[in-house]
């Protein structure tokens, strides 16, 4: 238990440091880059830049809704639209009040196989 107490502030510090590093790095004032999910199906884009522009900060989502590690969440079985409708993951904000509802504007996040291939070509 004592170990836990020691570790948790360390973890917070570390995540803050990571966050700080992401912001202070030259040319990366828009935060970390885009996250492209490929599971459970092809393909969904998450733009850190777009979300930061809307006044969100790291702690809005990390580590409560999403682990710090990018793409870690897509290993989970419940990373599905059904979970989003229950308020998990993206669905915490994408309810129709705070942000557009998870069951609307599908192709705003879903870039599909075509969008994925286009991004791969750019790299």
């Amino acid at each position, binding site marked *: 238990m004592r170990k836990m107490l020691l570790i948790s502030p360390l973890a917070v510090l570390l995540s803050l440091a990571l966050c700080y590093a992401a912001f202070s790095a030259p040319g990366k004032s828009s935060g970390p880059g885009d996250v492209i999910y490929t599971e459970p*199906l*092809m393909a969904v884009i998450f733009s850190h830049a777009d979300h930061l522009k809307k006044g969100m900060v790291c702690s809005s989502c990390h580590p409560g809704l999403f682990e710090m590690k990018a793409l870690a969440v897509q290993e989970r079985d419940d990373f599905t639209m059904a979970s989003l409708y229950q308020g998990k993951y993206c669905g915490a904000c994408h309810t129709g009040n705070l942000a557009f509802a998870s069951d609307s504007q*599908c*192709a*705003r996040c*879903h*870039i*599909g*196989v*075509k969008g994925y291939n286009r991004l791969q070509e750019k790299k």
Partner: protein
Amino acid sequence: MFENIDKMKREPAGTLPEFERRKFLKLGFVVTGVLAGGGLLSLVSTVEKSFASSGLFLEQYPYKPHYSMVIRQNLCIDCELCVAACNETNQVPSYGYRTTILERTVPHAVGRQTEFIPMLCMQCNDPPCVRACPTRASYKDRKNGIVMMENKKCIGCKACMVACPYNARYFSEEIHAIDKCDFCFVTRLSKGEKLTACSVACPTGARTFGDLADPAGKIYRMIHQLEAQVWTIRPKAGTKPNVFYMKG
């Protein structure tokens, strides 16, 4: 030209040429669905109100079952699970396709700017490919209305590929004939399955397959409602497609 429109002499209806008047009447029939089978069908359900009996109305679907697909365009996310399922089910080679997803981007739209449009053979009621085929390898099935291929008759002239306004055909080196979507008739429907591989694979329900002639069926209920606008691709080609598009 229209500056003096108030001063212009009114033209009584009697001066309309007979042809024009008949054309106008015909247009009315199309809008109410009597002659429909393609084009805009959103007003079709008025027919049910206008005619106490649905007999006349049902006559426009000459096939039993009248296979049809409704694509809810806004639900497509281009995951292409349908394409993968189709390719596997129908042994489609890597260079060919029976169904594809088109992408349309509207850069100045608010919010969502991309739209995915699933494409497949429209199983037209008046198929230009069948008309173009010199050997009758391409034919319209008399029972269910599916545009089919009789591979052994195909000479590979590709006239049907040119005739098709939907680019729904490709030449298969493997079978040495033109290959196209047949609503999975050979691989699934003829073996007792009720749905096509693509509609089963679709995770969002963008593709609904069924019998358009069945008033209790899902497809019939989707198409014949005033609330939603239903359209077909390239209605002016006069092909009367059996694949309908809508949103919602």
